[in-house]
Protein backbone atom coordinates (compact mmCIF):
# COMPACT_ATOMS: atom_id res chain seq x y z
CA UNK A 1 0.00 0.00 0.00
CA UNK A 2 1.05 3.57 -0.66
CA UNK A 3 2.30 5.55 2.31
CA UNK A 4 -0.40 8.29 2.09
CA UNK A 5 -3.11 5.61 2.22
CA UNK A 6 -1.51 3.97 5.24
CA UNK A 7 -1.19 7.30 6.94
CA UNK A 8 -4.85 8.05 6.30
CA UNK A 9 -5.82 4.72 7.81
CA UNK A 10 -3.62 5.54 10.80
CA UNK A 11 -5.37 8.90 11.27
CA UNK A 12 -8.85 7.39 10.95
CA UNK A 13 -8.08 4.69 13.50
CA UNK A 14 -6.65 7.28 15.88
CA UNK A 15 -9.93 9.22 15.68
CA UNK A 16 -12.08 6.10 16.10
CA UNK A 17 -10.12 4.83 19.08
CA UNK A 18 -10.13 8.25 20.66
CA UNK A 19 -13.91 8.52 20.38
CA UNK A 20 -14.32 5.28 22.36
CA UNK A 21 -12.20 6.88 25.07
CA UNK A 22 -14.99 9.37 25.64
CA UNK A 23 -17.49 6.56 26.03
CA UNK A 24 -16.56 6.11 29.70
CA UNK A 25 -17.31 9.76 30.42
CA UNK A 26 -20.56 9.49 28.47
CA UNK A 27 -21.75 6.44 30.43
CA UNK A 28 -20.91 7.92 33.84
CA UNK A 29 -22.51 11.19 32.72
CA UNK A 30 -25.57 9.27 31.52
CA UNK A 31 -25.94 7.45 34.82
CA UNK A 32 -25.59 10.71 36.77
CA UNK A 33 -28.09 12.47 34.50
CA UNK A 34 -30.62 9.64 34.82
CA UNK A 35 -30.32 9.57 38.62
CA UNK A 36 -30.50 13.34 39.10
CA UNK A 37 -33.29 13.88 36.54
CA UNK A 38 -35.59 11.34 38.17
CA UNK A 39 -34.61 12.48 41.66
CA UNK A 40 -35.62 16.02 40.72
CA UNK A 41 -38.95 14.73 39.46
CA UNK A 42 -39.34 13.04 42.85
CA UNK A 43 -38.51 16.17 44.83
CA UNK A 44 -41.09 18.16 42.86
CA UNK A 45 -43.68 15.92 44.50
CA UNK A 46 -42.19 15.09 47.89
CA UNK A 47 -40.38 17.53 50.17
CA UNK A 48 -36.65 16.71 50.48
CA UNK A 49 -36.88 17.14 54.27
CA UNK A 50 -39.61 14.48 54.52
CA UNK A 51 -37.43 12.18 52.44
CA UNK A 52 -34.31 12.65 54.57
CA UNK A 53 -35.93 12.65 58.01
CA UNK A 54 -38.88 10.33 57.41
CA UNK A 55 -38.77 7.20 59.55
CA UNK A 56 -41.17 5.17 57.45
CA UNK A 57 -40.89 3.79 53.93
CA UNK A 58 -44.37 2.88 52.78
CA UNK A 59 -44.98 4.02 49.21
CA UNK A 60 -48.16 2.00 48.78
CA UNK A 61 -49.72 3.23 52.03
CA UNK A 62 -52.28 5.97 52.40
CA UNK A 63 -50.77 8.50 52.70
CA UNK A 64 -47.68 7.18 50.90
CA UNK A 65 -44.58 7.65 53.03
CA UNK A 66 -41.13 8.10 51.53
CA UNK A 67 -38.71 8.25 54.46
CA UNK A 68 -35.26 6.95 53.56
CA UNK A 69 -34.05 6.53 57.18
CA UNK A 70 -35.12 2.91 57.71
CA UNK A 71 -33.44 1.89 54.44
CA UNK A 72 -30.32 3.86 55.23
CA UNK A 73 -30.09 2.42 58.74
CA UNK A 74 -30.60 -1.10 57.33
CA UNK A 75 -27.83 -0.65 54.76
CA UNK A 76 -25.49 0.82 57.40
CA UNK A 77 -26.29 -1.93 59.89
CA UNK A 78 -25.60 -4.76 57.46
CA UNK A 79 -22.46 -3.09 56.10
CA UNK A 80 -21.16 -2.37 59.61
CA UNK A 81 -21.75 -5.97 60.65
CA UNK A 82 -20.01 -7.22 57.52
CA UNK A 83 -16.97 -5.07 58.21
CA UNK A 84 -16.73 -6.12 61.87
CA UNK A 85 -16.38 -9.67 60.57
CA UNK A 86 -14.39 -9.06 57.39
CA UNK A 87 -11.77 -6.53 58.51
CA UNK A 88 -9.99 -8.68 61.15
CA UNK A 89 -10.32 -11.82 59.01
CA UNK A 90 -9.14 -9.99 55.90
CA UNK A 91 -6.13 -8.30 57.49
CA UNK A 92 -5.15 -11.50 59.31
CA UNK A 93 -5.29 -13.50 56.11
CA UNK A 94 -3.40 -10.82 54.20
CA UNK A 95 -0.70 -10.77 56.88
CA UNK A 96 -0.45 -14.55 56.83
CA UNK A 97 -0.17 -14.59 53.02
CA UNK A 98 2.38 -11.81 52.84
CA UNK A 99 4.57 -12.54 55.88
CA UNK A 100 4.30 -16.22 56.80
CA UNK A 101 3.06 -18.36 53.93
CA UNK A 102 5.67 -19.98 51.69
CA UNK A 103 5.36 -19.81 47.93
CA UNK A 104 3.79 -23.28 47.79
CA UNK A 105 1.04 -22.43 50.30
CA UNK A 106 0.52 -19.10 48.56
CA UNK A 107 0.06 -20.99 45.30
CA UNK A 108 -2.94 -22.76 46.86
CA UNK A 109 -4.40 -19.92 48.95
CA UNK A 110 -4.39 -17.20 46.29
CA UNK A 111 -6.43 -19.17 43.72
CA UNK A 112 -8.77 -20.21 46.57
CA UNK A 113 -9.43 -16.55 47.36
CA UNK A 114 -9.96 -15.80 43.66
CA UNK A 115 -12.44 -18.67 43.57
CA UNK A 116 -14.30 -17.20 46.53
CA UNK A 117 -14.46 -13.89 44.64
CA UNK A 118 -15.90 -15.67 41.60
CA UNK A 119 -18.90 -17.20 43.41
CA UNK A 120 -21.96 -15.29 42.10
CA UNK A 121 -23.79 -13.19 44.70
CA UNK A 122 -27.05 -15.02 44.04
CA UNK A 123 -25.42 -18.35 45.01
CA UNK A 124 -24.16 -16.83 48.27
CA UNK A 125 -27.64 -15.43 48.94
CA UNK A 126 -29.09 -18.88 48.30
CA UNK A 127 -26.79 -20.39 50.91
CA UNK A 128 -27.91 -17.64 53.27
CA UNK A 129 -31.43 -19.02 52.94
CA UNK A 130 -30.71 -22.75 53.05
CA UNK A 131 -27.57 -23.00 55.21
CA UNK A 132 -26.88 -19.93 57.33
CA UNK A 133 -30.55 -19.02 57.90
CA UNK A 134 -31.52 -22.30 59.57
CA UNK A 135 -28.25 -22.16 61.55
CA UNK A 136 -29.08 -18.72 62.94
CA UNK A 137 -32.68 -19.76 63.53
CA UNK A 138 -31.45 -22.73 65.55
CA UNK A 139 -29.30 -20.50 67.75
CA UNK A 140 -31.86 -17.76 68.33
CA UNK A 141 -35.11 -19.69 68.17
CA UNK A 142 -36.47 -17.58 65.30
CA UNK A 143 -38.47 -19.10 62.49
CA UNK A 144 -36.14 -18.64 59.51
CA UNK A 145 -33.00 -16.72 60.50
CA UNK A 146 -33.37 -14.20 57.68
CA UNK A 147 -32.06 -11.08 59.39
CA UNK A 148 -29.34 -8.42 59.41
CA UNK A 149 -26.81 -10.81 60.96
CA UNK A 150 -27.32 -13.30 58.13
CA UNK A 151 -26.82 -10.55 55.54
CA UNK A 152 -23.77 -9.24 57.38
CA UNK A 153 -22.03 -12.63 57.40
CA UNK A 154 -22.72 -13.14 53.69
CA UNK A 155 -21.55 -9.64 52.78
CA UNK A 156 -18.40 -10.26 54.82
CA UNK A 157 -17.72 -13.34 52.68
CA UNK A 158 -18.29 -11.29 49.54
CA UNK A 159 -16.06 -8.41 50.68
CA UNK A 160 -13.24 -10.65 51.97
CA UNK A 161 -11.50 -11.40 48.65
CA UNK A 162 -11.27 -7.67 47.86
CA UNK A 163 -9.95 -6.81 51.32
CA UNK A 164 -7.44 -9.69 51.38
CA UNK A 165 -6.08 -8.98 47.89
CA UNK A 166 -5.66 -5.21 48.32
CA UNK A 167 -4.32 -5.47 51.89
CA UNK A 168 -1.87 -8.19 50.87
CA UNK A 169 -0.56 -5.97 48.06
CA UNK A 170 -0.10 -3.18 50.59
CA UNK A 171 1.77 -5.38 53.08
CA UNK A 172 3.84 -6.94 50.34
CA UNK A 173 4.87 -3.51 49.07
CA UNK A 174 6.63 -2.55 52.30
CA UNK A 175 10.38 -2.50 51.57
CA UNK A 176 12.43 -5.23 53.24
CA UNK A 177 14.70 -2.57 54.71
CA UNK A 178 11.90 -1.58 57.13
CA UNK A 179 11.65 -5.11 58.46
CA UNK A 180 15.40 -5.61 58.55
CA UNK A 181 15.78 -2.46 60.62
CA UNK A 182 13.17 -3.83 63.00
CA UNK A 183 14.89 -7.21 63.26
CA UNK A 184 18.17 -5.35 63.73
CA UNK A 185 16.97 -3.74 66.95
CA UNK A 186 15.87 -7.12 68.26
CA UNK A 187 12.18 -7.32 67.36
CA UNK A 188 10.78 -10.72 66.38
CA UNK A 189 8.56 -11.43 63.38
CA UNK A 190 5.29 -10.76 65.16
CA UNK A 191 6.47 -7.50 66.74
CA UNK A 192 7.76 -6.40 63.34
CA UNK A 193 4.41 -7.22 61.72
CA UNK A 194 2.32 -5.41 64.34
CA UNK A 195 4.57 -2.43 65.06
CA UNK A 196 6.29 -1.84 61.72
CA UNK A 197 4.78 -3.52 58.67
CA UNK A 198 1.07 -2.97 59.37
CA UNK A 199 1.48 0.71 60.41
CA UNK A 200 3.63 1.34 57.34
CA UNK A 201 0.99 -0.24 55.12
CA UNK A 202 -1.91 1.49 56.93
CA UNK A 203 -3.06 3.68 54.01
CA UNK A 204 -3.11 0.64 51.72
CA UNK A 205 -5.04 -1.38 54.31
CA UNK A 206 -7.51 1.49 54.73
CA UNK A 207 -7.95 1.50 50.96
CA UNK A 208 -8.69 -2.23 51.12
CA UNK A 209 -11.32 -1.64 53.80
CA UNK A 210 -12.92 1.18 51.80
CA UNK A 211 -13.15 -0.98 48.67
CA UNK A 212 -14.69 -3.73 50.81
CA UNK A 213 -17.25 -1.29 52.21
CA UNK A 214 -18.06 -0.11 48.68
CA UNK A 215 -18.63 -3.69 47.64
CA UNK A 216 -20.90 -4.38 50.65
CA UNK A 217 -23.05 -1.24 50.37
CA UNK A 218 -23.84 -1.82 46.71
CA UNK A 219 -24.49 -5.56 46.90
CA UNK A 220 -28.07 -6.45 46.00
CA UNK A 221 -28.85 -10.14 45.64
CA UNK A 222 -27.34 -11.46 48.87
CA UNK A 223 -29.12 -8.94 51.09
CA UNK A 224 -32.31 -9.26 49.07
CA UNK A 225 -32.37 -13.00 49.71
CA UNK A 226 -30.93 -13.20 53.22
CA UNK A 227 -32.22 -10.27 55.27
CA UNK A 228 -35.97 -10.91 55.17
CA UNK A 229 -36.85 -7.45 53.80
CA UNK A 230 -39.28 -6.37 56.54
CA UNK A 231 -40.14 -2.74 55.92
CA UNK A 232 -40.38 -1.80 59.63
CA UNK A 233 -37.66 0.38 61.14
CA UNK A 234 -34.63 -1.88 61.77
CA UNK A 235 -34.28 -2.89 65.42
CA UNK A 236 -30.98 -4.75 65.43
CA UNK A 237 -28.89 -7.57 64.06
CA UNK A 238 -31.41 -10.24 64.97
CA UNK A 239 -34.24 -8.50 63.15
CA UNK A 240 -35.18 -8.44 59.52
CA UNK A 241 -33.98 -5.36 57.63
CA UNK A 242 -34.51 -3.93 54.18
CA UNK A 243 -31.57 -2.22 52.49
CA UNK A 244 -31.64 0.44 49.76
CA UNK A 245 -30.54 -2.06 47.12
CA UNK A 246 -33.16 -4.64 48.14
CA UNK A 247 -35.90 -2.00 48.10
CA UNK A 248 -35.02 -1.01 44.53
CA UNK A 249 -34.89 -4.65 43.45
CA UNK A 250 -38.25 -5.51 45.02
CA UNK A 251 -40.24 -2.43 44.06
CA UNK A 252 -38.90 -1.45 40.64
CA UNK A 253 -40.41 -4.54 39.06
CA UNK A 254 -43.87 -3.64 40.28
CA UNK A 255 -44.29 0.12 39.96
CA UNK A 256 -45.89 1.81 36.95
CA UNK A 257 -43.47 4.10 35.10
CA UNK A 258 -43.35 7.79 35.85
CA UNK A 259 -45.20 7.68 39.15
CA UNK A 260 -43.99 9.20 42.44
CA UNK A 261 -43.12 5.72 43.64
CA UNK A 262 -41.08 5.10 40.47
CA UNK A 263 -39.17 8.36 40.93
CA UNK A 264 -38.62 7.61 44.62
CA UNK A 265 -36.60 4.51 43.71
CA UNK A 266 -34.24 6.67 41.65
CA UNK A 267 -33.96 9.05 44.60
CA UNK A 268 -32.78 6.27 46.94
CA UNK A 269 -30.52 4.99 44.14
CA UNK A 270 -28.95 8.47 44.01
CA UNK A 271 -28.25 8.28 47.74
CA UNK A 272 -26.71 4.82 47.24
CA UNK A 273 -24.64 6.11 44.32
CA UNK A 274 -23.31 9.03 46.37
CA UNK A 275 -22.34 6.74 49.24
CA UNK A 276 -20.44 4.30 47.03
CA UNK A 277 -18.83 7.24 45.22
CA UNK A 278 -17.57 8.76 48.48
CA UNK A 279 -16.33 5.41 49.79
CA UNK A 280 -14.53 4.56 46.55
CA UNK A 281 -12.95 8.01 46.33
CA UNK A 282 -11.71 7.65 49.91
CA UNK A 283 -10.25 4.29 48.93
CA UNK A 284 -8.52 5.85 45.95
CA UNK A 285 -7.21 8.68 48.11
CA UNK A 286 -5.62 6.19 50.50
CA UNK A 287 -4.11 4.19 47.64
CA UNK A 288 -2.50 7.33 46.22
CA UNK A 289 -1.28 8.41 49.63
CA UNK A 290 0.28 4.99 50.11
CA UNK A 291 2.04 5.22 46.74
CA UNK A 292 3.43 8.69 47.42
CA UNK A 293 4.58 7.65 50.86
CA UNK A 294 6.63 4.81 49.50
CA UNK A 295 8.01 6.47 46.42
CA UNK A 296 9.31 9.32 48.59
Amino acid at each position, binding site marked *: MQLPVRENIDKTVRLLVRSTGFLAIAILGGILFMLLWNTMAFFLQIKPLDFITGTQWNPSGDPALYGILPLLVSTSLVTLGAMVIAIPLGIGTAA*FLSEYAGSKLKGILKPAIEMLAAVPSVAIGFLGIVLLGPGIAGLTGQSNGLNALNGAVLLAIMALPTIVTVAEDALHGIPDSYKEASYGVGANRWQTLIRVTIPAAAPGILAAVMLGVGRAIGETMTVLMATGNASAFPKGFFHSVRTITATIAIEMGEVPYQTTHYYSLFAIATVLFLFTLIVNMLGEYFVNKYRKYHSA
Partner: protein
Amino acid sequence: MIKKLTPVIEWGTLLLTTGTVCFFLVAILWDLVSKGAPSLSWEFVSSIPREGMTKGGILPAITGTILLTLITAAAAVPFGVSCAVYLNEYATDSALNRLIRASIRNLAGVPSIIYGLFGLALFVQALQMGTSLLAAGLTLGLLSLPYIITTTEEALRRIPASTREGALAIGATQFESIRDVVMPSALPGILTGVVLSLSRAAGETAPILFTGVAFYINSPTGSLNQEFMALPYHLYMLSTQHHAIEEVRPLAYSTALVLIIVVFLLNLTAFYIRYKHSKK
Protein backbone atom coordinates in the same frame (compact mmCIF):
# COMPACT_ATOMS: atom_id res chain seq x y z
CA MET B 1 5.90 -20.77 80.01
CA ILE B 2 3.92 -17.77 78.82
CA LYS B 3 6.87 -16.66 76.73
CA LYS B 4 6.94 -20.00 75.00
CA LEU B 5 3.22 -19.90 74.31
CA THR B 6 3.09 -16.36 72.88
CA PRO B 7 4.45 -17.16 69.41
CA VAL B 8 2.03 -20.07 69.18
CA ILE B 9 -0.92 -17.81 69.98
CA GLU B 10 0.31 -15.17 67.56
CA TRP B 11 0.80 -17.67 64.80
CA GLY B 12 -2.46 -19.34 65.65
CA THR B 13 -4.40 -16.10 65.24
CA LEU B 14 -3.22 -15.59 61.67
CA LEU B 15 -3.67 -19.24 60.87
CA LEU B 16 -7.19 -19.11 62.30
CA THR B 17 -8.20 -16.10 60.18
CA THR B 18 -6.81 -17.71 57.04
CA GLY B 19 -8.48 -20.99 57.97
CA THR B 20 -11.83 -19.23 58.40
CA VAL B 21 -11.61 -17.67 54.94
CA CYS B 22 -10.80 -21.08 53.44
CA PHE B 23 -13.58 -22.63 55.49
CA PHE B 24 -16.09 -20.25 53.85
CA LEU B 25 -15.04 -21.43 50.40
CA VAL B 26 -15.05 -25.10 51.36
CA ALA B 27 -18.46 -24.78 53.07
CA ILE B 28 -19.97 -23.07 50.01
CA LEU B 29 -18.59 -25.64 47.57
CA TRP B 30 -19.30 -28.62 49.81
CA ASP B 31 -22.92 -27.66 50.43
CA LEU B 32 -23.63 -26.92 46.78
CA VAL B 33 -21.93 -30.04 45.44
CA SER B 34 -23.23 -32.49 48.05
CA LYS B 35 -26.84 -31.33 47.79
CA GLY B 36 -26.84 -30.24 44.15
CA ALA B 37 -25.22 -33.27 42.58
CA PRO B 38 -27.92 -35.91 43.39
CA SER B 39 -30.62 -34.26 41.28
CA LEU B 40 -28.20 -33.19 38.57
CA SER B 41 -28.62 -35.26 35.43
CA TRP B 42 -28.40 -35.02 31.69
CA GLU B 43 -32.15 -34.59 31.61
CA PHE B 44 -31.89 -31.66 34.03
CA VAL B 45 -29.57 -29.66 31.80
CA SER B 46 -31.20 -30.66 28.51
CA SER B 47 -34.93 -30.27 29.00
CA ILE B 48 -37.31 -27.40 29.58
CA PRO B 49 -39.10 -26.86 32.94
CA ARG B 50 -42.40 -28.72 33.37
CA GLU B 51 -45.38 -28.62 35.74
CA GLY B 52 -44.81 -25.17 37.18
CA MET B 53 -41.06 -25.77 37.32
CA THR B 54 -41.40 -28.54 39.90
CA LYS B 55 -40.13 -31.01 37.29
CA GLY B 56 -38.02 -30.98 34.15
CA GLY B 57 -34.80 -29.14 33.57
CA ILE B 58 -33.25 -25.75 33.12
CA LEU B 59 -32.25 -25.78 29.44
CA PRO B 60 -33.79 -22.35 28.62
CA ALA B 61 -31.94 -20.81 31.57
CA ILE B 62 -28.63 -22.27 30.39
CA THR B 63 -29.06 -21.18 26.77
CA GLY B 64 -30.37 -17.81 27.99
CA THR B 65 -27.26 -17.23 30.09
CA ILE B 66 -25.00 -18.26 27.19
CA LEU B 67 -26.77 -15.96 24.70
CA LEU B 68 -26.78 -13.13 27.24
CA THR B 69 -23.04 -13.50 27.84
CA LEU B 70 -22.36 -13.53 24.08
CA ILE B 71 -24.29 -10.27 23.65
CA THR B 72 -22.43 -8.81 26.61
CA ALA B 73 -19.13 -9.78 24.97
CA ALA B 74 -20.18 -8.40 21.57
CA ALA B 75 -21.14 -5.10 23.17
CA ALA B 76 -18.32 -4.65 25.67
CA VAL B 77 -15.20 -6.21 24.11
CA PRO B 78 -14.78 -3.97 21.01
CA PHE B 79 -15.40 -0.74 22.92
CA GLY B 80 -13.48 -1.85 25.99
CA VAL B 81 -10.38 -2.95 24.09
CA SER B 82 -10.48 0.13 21.88
CA CYS B 83 -10.77 2.43 24.90
CA ALA B 84 -7.84 0.67 26.56
CA VAL B 85 -5.75 1.01 23.38
CA TYR B 86 -6.54 4.72 23.36
CA LEU B 87 -5.55 5.16 27.00
CA ASN B 88 -2.33 3.17 26.79
CA GLU B 89 -1.12 3.85 23.25
CA TYR B 90 -2.41 7.29 22.28
CA ALA B 91 -3.45 9.27 25.35
CA THR B 92 -1.18 11.91 26.81
CA ASP B 93 -1.40 13.00 30.43
CA SER B 94 -3.98 15.72 29.79
CA ALA B 95 -6.82 16.84 32.03
CA LEU B 96 -9.34 15.25 29.69
CA ASN B 97 -7.61 11.87 29.78
CA ARG B 98 -7.38 12.01 33.55
CA LEU B 99 -11.14 12.60 33.54
CA ILE B 100 -11.60 9.51 31.35
CA ARG B 101 -9.53 7.44 33.79
CA ALA B 102 -11.43 8.81 36.78
CA SER B 103 -14.74 7.97 35.07
CA ILE B 104 -13.63 4.39 34.47
CA ARG B 105 -12.56 3.93 38.09
CA ASN B 106 -15.88 5.33 39.28
CA LEU B 107 -17.87 3.17 36.86
CA ALA B 108 -16.16 0.09 38.31
CA GLY B 109 -17.52 1.05 41.74
CA VAL B 110 -21.11 1.74 40.67
CA PRO B 111 -23.44 -0.86 42.28
CA SER B 112 -24.85 -3.38 39.81
CA ILE B 113 -28.45 -2.50 40.68
CA ILE B 114 -27.80 1.07 39.44
CA TYR B 115 -26.64 -0.39 36.12
CA GLY B 116 -29.99 -2.18 36.13
CA LEU B 117 -31.83 1.12 36.58
CA PHE B 118 -29.71 2.73 33.85
CA GLY B 119 -30.41 -0.14 31.47
CA LEU B 120 -34.12 0.20 32.22
CA ALA B 121 -34.11 3.95 31.60
CA LEU B 122 -31.83 3.90 28.55
CA PHE B 123 -32.35 0.66 26.64
CA VAL B 124 -35.81 -0.50 27.73
CA GLN B 125 -37.55 2.86 27.81
CA ALA B 126 -35.64 5.61 25.94
CA LEU B 127 -34.42 3.39 23.08
CA GLN B 128 -37.67 1.38 23.17
CA MET B 129 -36.07 -2.06 23.13
CA GLY B 130 -38.58 -3.24 25.73
CA THR B 131 -37.61 -5.84 28.31
CA SER B 132 -35.52 -8.08 26.08
CA LEU B 133 -32.41 -10.20 25.71
CA LEU B 134 -30.77 -7.35 23.80
CA ALA B 135 -31.51 -4.72 26.49
CA ALA B 136 -30.23 -6.99 29.26
CA GLY B 137 -27.11 -7.96 27.28
CA LEU B 138 -26.27 -4.32 26.61
CA THR B 139 -26.82 -3.47 30.28
CA LEU B 140 -24.36 -6.19 31.30
CA GLY B 141 -22.05 -4.89 28.58
CA LEU B 142 -21.97 -1.49 30.29
CA LEU B 143 -21.29 -3.19 33.63
CA SER B 144 -18.37 -5.18 32.16
CA LEU B 145 -16.83 -2.26 30.27
CA PRO B 146 -14.70 -0.78 33.10
CA TYR B 147 -13.27 -4.23 34.01
CA ILE B 148 -12.42 -4.99 30.38
CA ILE B 149 -10.78 -1.58 29.92
CA THR B 150 -8.72 -1.93 33.12
CA THR B 151 -7.50 -5.48 32.46
CA THR B 152 -6.76 -4.76 28.78
CA GLU B 153 -4.78 -1.67 29.67
CA GLU B 154 -2.85 -3.71 32.21
CA ALA B 155 -1.99 -6.26 29.49
CA LEU B 156 -0.93 -3.52 27.06
CA ARG B 157 1.21 -1.84 29.69
CA ARG B 158 3.25 -5.01 30.12
CA ILE B 159 4.44 -4.83 26.49
CA PRO B 160 7.81 -3.02 26.58
CA ALA B 161 8.17 0.28 24.71
CA SER B 162 11.06 -1.18 22.70
CA THR B 163 8.59 -3.53 20.95
CA ARG B 164 6.64 -0.55 19.60
CA GLU B 165 9.77 1.42 18.80
CA GLY B 166 11.16 -1.50 16.80
CA ALA B 167 8.05 -1.56 14.61
CA LEU B 168 8.03 2.22 14.18
CA ALA B 169 11.73 2.22 13.30
CA ILE B 170 11.26 -0.07 10.32
CA GLY B 171 8.56 2.24 8.97
CA ALA B 172 5.26 0.97 10.37
CA THR B 173 2.59 3.55 11.18
CA GLN B 174 1.39 3.66 14.77
CA PHE B 175 -1.75 1.72 13.84
CA GLU B 176 0.29 -0.96 12.08
CA SER B 177 2.59 -1.23 15.06
CA ILE B 178 -0.39 -1.72 17.36
CA ARG B 179 -2.19 -4.15 15.04
CA ASP B 180 0.76 -6.32 14.05
CA VAL B 181 3.10 -6.13 17.02
CA VAL B 182 1.50 -4.86 20.23
CA MET B 183 -1.89 -6.59 20.04
CA PRO B 184 -0.58 -10.09 19.22
CA SER B 185 1.81 -10.03 22.17
CA ALA B 186 -0.82 -8.60 24.54
CA LEU B 187 -3.55 -10.98 23.34
CA PRO B 188 -3.29 -13.64 26.09
CA GLY B 189 -3.45 -10.97 28.78
CA ILE B 190 -6.42 -9.30 27.11
CA LEU B 191 -8.24 -12.63 26.69
CA THR B 192 -7.71 -13.50 30.36
CA GLY B 193 -9.25 -10.19 31.42
CA VAL B 194 -12.15 -10.51 28.99
CA VAL B 195 -13.06 -14.03 30.09
CA LEU B 196 -12.88 -13.06 33.78
CA SER B 197 -15.12 -10.04 33.14
CA LEU B 198 -17.62 -12.23 31.29
CA SER B 199 -17.68 -14.83 34.06
CA ARG B 200 -18.61 -12.02 36.39
CA ALA B 201 -21.34 -10.79 34.04
CA ALA B 202 -22.74 -14.32 33.64
CA GLY B 203 -23.36 -14.56 37.39
CA GLU B 204 -24.99 -11.13 37.76
CA THR B 205 -28.66 -10.90 38.63
CA ALA B 206 -29.45 -7.34 39.69
CA PRO B 207 -28.78 -5.66 36.30
CA ILE B 208 -31.10 -8.02 34.42
CA LEU B 209 -33.98 -7.92 36.92
CA PHE B 210 -35.80 -5.07 35.18
CA THR B 211 -34.25 -5.28 31.73
CA GLY B 212 -35.56 -8.55 30.37
CA VAL B 213 -35.24 -11.67 32.51
CA ALA B 214 -38.39 -13.78 32.82
CA PHE B 215 -39.78 -16.45 35.16
CA TYR B 216 -40.46 -18.93 32.45
CA ILE B 217 -39.90 -19.27 28.70
CA ASN B 218 -41.05 -22.43 26.99
CA SER B 219 -38.50 -22.51 24.19
CA PRO B 220 -34.80 -23.20 24.63
CA THR B 221 -33.71 -20.68 22.01
CA GLY B 222 -34.15 -17.01 22.60
CA SER B 223 -34.66 -14.10 20.29
CA LEU B 224 -33.07 -10.68 20.69
CA ASN B 225 -36.27 -8.73 21.21
CA GLN B 226 -37.90 -11.13 23.66
CA GLU B 227 -37.59 -11.88 27.34
CA PHE B 228 -35.38 -14.77 28.39
CA MET B 229 -34.49 -17.06 31.29
CA ALA B 230 -31.09 -16.89 33.00
CA LEU B 231 -29.40 -19.19 35.52
CA PRO B 232 -28.81 -16.62 38.31
CA TYR B 233 -32.37 -15.33 38.15
CA HIS B 234 -33.76 -18.86 37.93
CA LEU B 235 -31.94 -19.67 41.18
CA TYR B 236 -33.27 -16.50 42.83
CA MET B 237 -36.78 -17.30 41.67
CA LEU B 238 -36.68 -20.97 42.76
CA SER B 239 -35.38 -20.06 46.21
CA THR B 240 -37.59 -17.07 47.04
CA GLN B 241 -40.50 -16.59 44.62
CA HIS B 242 -41.71 -20.07 43.76
CA HIS B 243 -45.10 -21.19 45.06
CA ALA B 244 -43.69 -24.47 46.39
CA ILE B 245 -40.29 -23.43 47.67
CA GLU B 246 -39.59 -26.51 49.77
CA GLU B 247 -40.58 -28.86 46.96
CA VAL B 248 -38.25 -27.27 44.40
CA ARG B 249 -35.30 -26.95 46.80
CA PRO B 250 -33.37 -29.85 45.19
CA LEU B 251 -33.86 -28.18 41.80
CA ALA B 252 -32.62 -24.89 43.27
CA TYR B 253 -29.51 -26.65 44.58
CA SER B 254 -28.81 -28.19 41.18
CA THR B 255 -29.36 -24.83 39.46
CA ALA B 256 -26.88 -23.25 41.87
CA LEU B 257 -24.38 -26.01 41.12
CA VAL B 258 -24.77 -25.56 37.35
CA LEU B 259 -24.33 -21.79 37.74
CA ILE B 260 -21.16 -22.27 39.81
CA ILE B 261 -19.82 -24.77 37.28
CA VAL B 262 -20.43 -22.36 34.39
CA VAL B 263 -18.71 -19.50 36.24
CA PHE B 264 -15.78 -21.64 37.39
CA LEU B 265 -15.29 -23.08 33.89
CA LEU B 266 -14.96 -19.55 32.54
CA ASN B 267 -12.49 -18.76 35.34
CA LEU B 268 -10.49 -21.90 34.63
CA THR B 269 -10.32 -20.91 30.96
CA ALA B 270 -8.89 -17.56 31.99
CA PHE B 271 -6.34 -19.16 34.33
CA TYR B 272 -5.36 -21.64 31.62
CA ILE B 273 -4.69 -18.83 29.14
CA ARG B 274 -2.64 -16.99 31.76
CA TYR B 275 -0.73 -20.13 32.76
CA LYS B 276 0.07 -21.14 29.18
CA HIS B 277 1.28 -17.66 28.41
CA SER B 278 3.44 -17.37 31.51
CA LYS B 279 5.31 -20.55 30.54
CA LYS B 280 6.46 -19.11 27.22
